[in-house]
């Protein structure tokens, strides 16, 4: 019988050995896939047992921290946002069910300490062996709380956004979006967020309008057109034009912006005056002269047609450029696909209309301010390990050269004229030279509300701040609605301590 017993023994051993193989499959090969399953409650709890890193503003103010909760002998860390909706557009949220947005989503690896720097891996392993709580790393943002506060309170009651950058480095100092939401309610009372009311439909409080909101740029786009014109060498600040109050597109007259029902014709003007007074007819002529390719190439040199670089999730950043009737990004191949005269002042027909994000327009202002070089925007200034050591520090990087330095200096002068005597006088700051450009985009026919813009930088001689402000559904124009907000943000950043 021993022969049979030996065979039976072999069968028994093979059966149990197959269990080792099966276990190996689930615990190694399939492990990562199972961890990602939405109904994997273990993963939910396991992630909650990680003491997630804090998120702080530039001055150390805490924007996201943890609330401890003890369950069955385990300490769980639930997220808490002491500043409510003030920083929600950029910070985002992280819930128990692992829904995430903003930096909480994109910087999850840093925040949970699972980033793959050798030091954190070793530290994490040692902590695990010691049975200690895994601690995440802290994010230190470049956002300046005082200016952020100013931006958010001035935007309150509107649908709109504001972005401020340091043009020398690309550091994001303000990123505001209204309406916002209270990230503490995402888990407990999401329906309240969905019921948010705002003077625009849909209210979309969860959308970061600063990076994902697409708006018609209107005259603020003239800075891009002027860049193309000056860079072409065919125009300079003193180039002469005659404004008849309209220009002819496809055999029809396109009129200047009708301010209070009265269409002005400025007559003979130079390039500076044309920008100062935002004369559509002149820009229309320039556009027809230099062509849509030249304008769009200048736009691309500012970063258009790509989602602007930032640490937030790519799903929360949208590219600026021409959009077609189905609202898809659209890069024309034939001149007749574009109404170049309107494009020159930031408008266009449904088939090819320009749409931009506030972050992109802030990059336009910053490019002019920084002698033609657009720096790569960033909002995470540094990351510190639980022991306080710095494991990542942002360094300024050149993103694109948008124009020649001589173009930048001429545009700088022209944009200063807008604030000193043109459409943007509301942005004047006593003792500081401000350069800017207004925009009032018609989103429907006459009488419908406008999207208003102001992009600016200051001090004009040595700029340290570049800003873009957009407001939806305004009855006023950019110079009266958006310019004062841009001014207040710049003041808060340039003269800290003076709280307007």
């Amino acid at each position, binding site marked *: 019988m021993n022969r049979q017993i030996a065979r039976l023994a072999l069968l*028994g051993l093979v059966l149990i050995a197959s269990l080792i193989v099966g276990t190996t499959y689930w615990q190694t090969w399939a492990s990562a896939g199972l961890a990602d399953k939405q109904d994997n*409650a273990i*993963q939910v709890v396991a992630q909650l047992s990680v003491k997630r890193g804090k998120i702080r503003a530039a001055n150390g103010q805490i924007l996201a921290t943890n609330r401890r909760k003890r369950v069955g002998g385990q300490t769980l860390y639930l997220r808490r946002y002491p500043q409510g909706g003030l920083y929600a557009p950029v910070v985002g949220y992280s819930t128990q069910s692992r829904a995430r947005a903003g930096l909480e989503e994109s910087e999850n690896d840093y925040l949970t300490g699972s980033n793959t720097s050798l030091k954190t891996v070793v530290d994490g392993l040692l902590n695990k062996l010691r049975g200690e709580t895994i601690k995440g790393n802290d994010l230190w943002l470049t956002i300046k709380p005082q200016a952020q506060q100013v931006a958010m309170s001035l935007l309150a009651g509107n649908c709109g956004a504001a972005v401020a950058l340091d043009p020398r480095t690309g550091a994001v100092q303000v990123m505001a979006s209204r309406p916002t939401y209270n990230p503490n309610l995402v888990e407990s009372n999401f329906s309240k967020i969905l019921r948010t009311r705002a003077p625009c439909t849909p209210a979309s409080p969860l959308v970061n309008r600063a990076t994902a909101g697409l708006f018609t740029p209107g005259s603020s786009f003239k800075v891009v057109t002027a860049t193309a014109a000056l860079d072409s060498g065919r125009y300079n600040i003193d180039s002469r034009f005659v404004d008849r109050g309209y220009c002819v597109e496809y055999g029809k007259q396109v009129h200047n912006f009708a301010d209070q029902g009265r269409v002005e014709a400025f007559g003979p003007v130079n390039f500076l005056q044309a920008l100062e007074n935002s004369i559509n007819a002149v820009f229309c002529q320039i556009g027809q002269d230099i062509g849509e390719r030249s304008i769009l190439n200048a736009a691309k040199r500012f970063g258009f047609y790509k989602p602007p670089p930032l640490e937030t999730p790519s799903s929360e950043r949208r590219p600026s450029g021409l959009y077609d009737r189905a609202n898809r990004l659209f890069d024309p191949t034939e001149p007749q696909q574009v109404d170049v005269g309107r494009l020159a002042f930031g408008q266009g027909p449904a088939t090819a209309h320009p749409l931009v994000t506030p972050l992109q327009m802030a990059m336009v202002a910053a490019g002019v301010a920084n002698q033609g070089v657009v720096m790569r925007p960033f909002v995470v200034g540094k990351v510190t390990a639980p022991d306080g050591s710095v494991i990542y520090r942002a360094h300024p990087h050149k993103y694109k050269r948008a124009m020649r330095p001589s173009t930048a200096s001429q545009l700088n002068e022209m944009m200063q004229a807008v604030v000193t005597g043109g459409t943007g006088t509301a942005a004047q700051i006593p003792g500081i030279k401000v350069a800017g450009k207004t925009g009032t985009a018609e989103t429907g026919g006459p009488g419908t509300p406008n999207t208003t813009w102001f992009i600016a930088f200051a001090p004009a001689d040595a700029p340290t701040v570049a800003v873009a402000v957009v407001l939806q559904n305004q009855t006023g124009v950019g110079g009266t609605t958006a310019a004062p907000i841009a001014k207040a943000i710049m003041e808060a950043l340039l003269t800290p301590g003076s709280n307007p």
Partner: protein
Amino acid sequence: MSLRNRELANLIVVGVLTAIGFASVYIARQSVVSTASLSYAAFFFALYLAAHLICRLTVPSADQYLLPMAALLTGVGVTEIYRLGPGDAFRQGLWIVVAVAALAVTLFFLQGDYRRLESYKYLFGLGAIGLLVLPALPVVGESVNGARLWVHVGSLQFQPGELAKIALIVFLAGYLREKREVLAQGRLKDFGPLLVIWGGAMLVLVETNDLGSALLYYGIFLAMLYVATARLLYVGLGAALFLAGAAGVYKLVPHVRERVTIWLHPWTSHPVPCAISGKPALRQDCASYQLVKSLYSLAHGNWFGTGLGKGTFETPSGHQLIPYLNTDFIYSALAQELGLVGVAALLLVYMLFVTRGMKVAMLADDGFSKLLAAGLTFSFALQTFIIVGGILRLIPLTGITLPFISYGGSSVVANFVLLALLLLVSDRANRGRG
């Protein structure tokens, strides 16, 4: 070193390992458990020593590794049960005392010659069926999780199926020893009593929905028939019959159909009808909830596990994530906390136990002893495969216990009786060798 001294040395190692296990649970869960956990280790060590002394007295020449391996598996089991719920561990501790007592009783009663069991084979056969029928009886029977497996008398609960398994193996060993020559020739008449008792057991098991045990008994029967007759044809026939029977049962019994569906497609992306809530739901939230959550538990363990006491078995609101965690699903709890390295080591201990048990069968010099030891050892291996294989989705999941580790009195007692019988066979075989 003599066999028993070697056993003692191994038991000391096991005792130290158990102490380390309890200590690490204590360290990880200080806030929940008390220092009493450390006295558990001392208690189990004392129990192991008692079992060892009984072996010295009754089976001095028995295999020296069987008891330490059983002690190790029991120790690992009770440590994990303790980690999951200190109250259950206390009850399990009491049952282990009963189990060691059962081991002692078996050894003392049968130390003269266990082979006299052979003369009572029909009694064991009928006894096995009687034990299996018990839970189906109205007054004492009780249904748990859709299967009537429990008997309870007063506050005492007992699952007689575990002991029935051993009784059936004793019957098969006796009957097959007597009839092996004629069975090998294929005289149908001699299959009569075999088929009556075995068929009766299968009927009861299918009737009570205990599919795991049915599979186990079928496997034991075929394995022992093969060892006795050396005819693979019978195994082939048996396997064919099994497939036909399984197909029939699949068609007829909805419970079985559901098990197979869960096995093949535990996850759905669209809601399917859910019998539990009556409303459509994703299958992973309904019928396959247990299996899926158990797989997540395995996956979370990864290579090295979370560490004893550091696993996650509750939601943030304190709900238990996996039902029947310390009985049917204790393997997934262990896999999460010990990791692949830990449970692979555990499975290697099972393999070693099988090796030693089969060695006992090969060394024995009479047919009854060989069949008994081989049957018991194979039942141990197959039972491990059925429950863990079910958890790992190698086969459809059927709830039976993991030998020596799962929570449950009857299971522990039955496994120690199984161990006692193996020790007896081994002792006799080795003594014959001098």
